[in-house]
């Protein structure tokens, strides 16, 4: 038994190291493939940049470690494709269950680039180096035709103009969120999958890996509590900030668009806000100082007025309104920023004032409209009839 084992071991050692017709050194292959213009019968480029390959992650490996069907020289024209899974089994397993599981459409090199120029992910030459990832993913996810085909938004332009995109492309911040920070890499799941980091209820945790303070605030507010208790109608980070086109929240553009976002759920509140001076001023482009929802309600830790920590709790109103209105006092904060002049029960004084003003407006205009029209007809008739001054002045 021991003898047989020894023979087998010797054969394996011989197979791997000893037999020249099996183990081909890089130099053997490069004697042909170093020619970068080398092409096969179908016109595929089969040249290898020896220098780049030597410095790459796989540079110490022999060619047929990957091109395992080649055992000798000369080799057949048709060779079997390289199987990365042989070594990278975990990544392959992750990919298999992901949205990119269709192998023919998503070969490893579609993200990792030139197979002979693969670098570690912290090497700036790598296609999966943090600063290069958006470009790598954008090759497909910045392509309109591809987006249409799969019913996906064309996210690359949205991302690249977002605050994350700017931090990454303009500032070169390695900590700026890139695609992989939120979506993961090999095991990317649809946002409909409860396991996905982009599934609605997982988003606060996903964003919280960087934005820990804000997430803690959010989880203490009504929206965070609702989501945590399973109410998926309540907003998570991306409902207000969007997923990819995230803007600097203090910038005018975001201030201008933030109100309708809250209003998409709080319709009644948006409608009454629209009737107030805050909204009328705020709707006109270029003026962003007037109060938006979150100036009064808070942004992440939104709390009901009944909570003493809420900025709209009665005891805090003077301070909250006072942020903009210097000199705000107890009477001033009785102002109702969501008053409804059409609701007699909630705002009776306002209701009757509006009614009076409307009746006055309608009454005056109706009376004078009739008066003026009759007058016009009559005086023109009179003018023509008397024919004085040729129907011109003073008829």
């Amino acid at each position, binding site marked *: 038994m021991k003898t047989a084992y020894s023979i087998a071991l010797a054969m394996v050692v011989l197979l791997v190291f000893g037999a020249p017709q099996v183990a081909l050194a890089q130099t053997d292959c490069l004697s042909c493939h170093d020619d970068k213009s080398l092409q096969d019968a179908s016109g595929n480029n089969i040249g290898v940049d020896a220098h780049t390959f030597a410095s790459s992650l796989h540079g110490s490996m022999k060619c047929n470690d990957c091109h395992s069907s080649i055992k000798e020289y000369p080799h057949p024209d048709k060779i079997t494709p390289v199987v990365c899974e042989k070594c990278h089994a975990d990544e392959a397993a992750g990919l298999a269950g992901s949205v990119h599981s269709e192998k023919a459409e998503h070969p490893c090199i579609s993200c990792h680039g030139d197979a002979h120029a693969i670098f570690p992910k912290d090497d700036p030459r790598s296609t999966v180096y943090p600063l290069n990832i958006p470009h790598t993913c954008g090759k497909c996810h910045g392509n309109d035709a591809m987006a249409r085909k799969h019913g996906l938004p064309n996210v690359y332009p949205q991302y690249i103009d977002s605050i994350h995109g700017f931090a990454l492309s303009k500032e070169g911040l390695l900590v700026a969120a890139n695609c992989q920070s939120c979506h993961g890499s090999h095991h990317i799941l649809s946002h409909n999958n409860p396991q996905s980091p982009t599934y609605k209820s997982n988003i606060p945790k996903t964003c919280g890996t960087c934005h820990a303070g804000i997430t803690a605030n959010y989880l203490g507010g009504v929206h965070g509590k609702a989501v945590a208790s399973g109410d998926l109608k309540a907003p998570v980070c991306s409902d207000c900030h969007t997923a990819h086109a995230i803007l600097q929240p203090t910038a005018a553009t975001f201030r201008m668009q933030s109100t309708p976002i809250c209003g998409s759920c709080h319709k009644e509140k948006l409608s009454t806000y629209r009737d107030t001076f805050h909204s009328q001023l705020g709707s*006109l*482009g270029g*003026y962003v100082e007037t109060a938006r929802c979150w100036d009064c309600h808070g942004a992440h830790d939104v709390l009901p007025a009944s909570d003493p920590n809420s900025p709209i709790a009665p005891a805090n109103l003077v301070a909250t309104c006072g942020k903009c209105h210097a000199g705000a006092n107890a009477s001033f*904060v009785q102002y109702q920023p969501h008053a409804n*002049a059409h609701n007699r029960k909630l705002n009776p*004084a306002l209701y009757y004032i509006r009614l009076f003003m409307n009746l006055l407006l309608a009454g005056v*205009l109706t009376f004078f409209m009739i008066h003026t029209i009759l007058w016009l007809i009559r005086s023109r008739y009179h003018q023509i009839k008397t024919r004085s001054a040729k129907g011109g*002045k003073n008829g």
Partner: protein
Amino acid sequence: MADLEQAAAGNIAQVHAGERYFVRFTRAQRYMHAVLFTTFLGLAATGLPMRFSESFWARKFASGVGGFGAIIFFHKFFALVLTLAFLIHVRDVFTRSWVRREKGIFWGKTSMVANWKDVKDLFGHMRWFLGLGPKPQFERYAYWEKFDYWAVFWGMIVIGFSGYAMWFAPFFARFLPGWALNAVLVIHSEEGLLAILFIFSIHFVNTHLRPDSFPMDMVIFTGVESEEEFKHKRPEEYQRVAAEGKLESRLGIQPPLWLVNFSKVVGFTAIFIGLLLLVLTLSAYFGS
């Protein structure tokens, strides 16, 4: 009307081919009207984009004049000028009635205060519209002119008060209840809308575009009108002044051509802007 006679006294009576001109408005009154319509157009043009802030033209206009900050700046600027003009008018009325003891300011044939004749004229005029009676013989200010005056007077107080209450809300909150701060916006915008709709449709037609004055009543710009126009439009005043033997003292000069042309340019520009704002207002009102 001492002030009219004073205004006329500065003129050398001229007779052109038998046509005489009579003074209706003093220089101060004409300037007051000019300030009134200039600031009113300014207030309307800067107020409407706020009232209809959701409409397509509001944002374009706002960004055109330099954003909302510029709009509210001009709105407040015009408001201050108009307030000043209003105070000057009130002081003028006070001086004439209480200091100079002038008669006929608060009561009488030349007063702006409505009287029984105005009620009769209103119904008489309506009967005439329908062909049921003779045309009323109007005095110095006809009932619709008095309405215009009091509408502006009331509007000035209501819009002015509610506007300043918004401008200085924390100050007004010291003596107004909280809901009043909600009410002032409703009052300000509805009264403003009424003023805009009224001036740009009813006042324009009643005063300028009706056949008797078409296309524009120049008297508010030149201060004078021809004898024929005077007799035709306000026969009762003409007869009263003639009976008092004061026609001569009301004589003015025919307005120079440059003044007529200048007034036409200014007047038609104002009417054009007014009608444009009217169209925008109606489109926003019915479009939303």
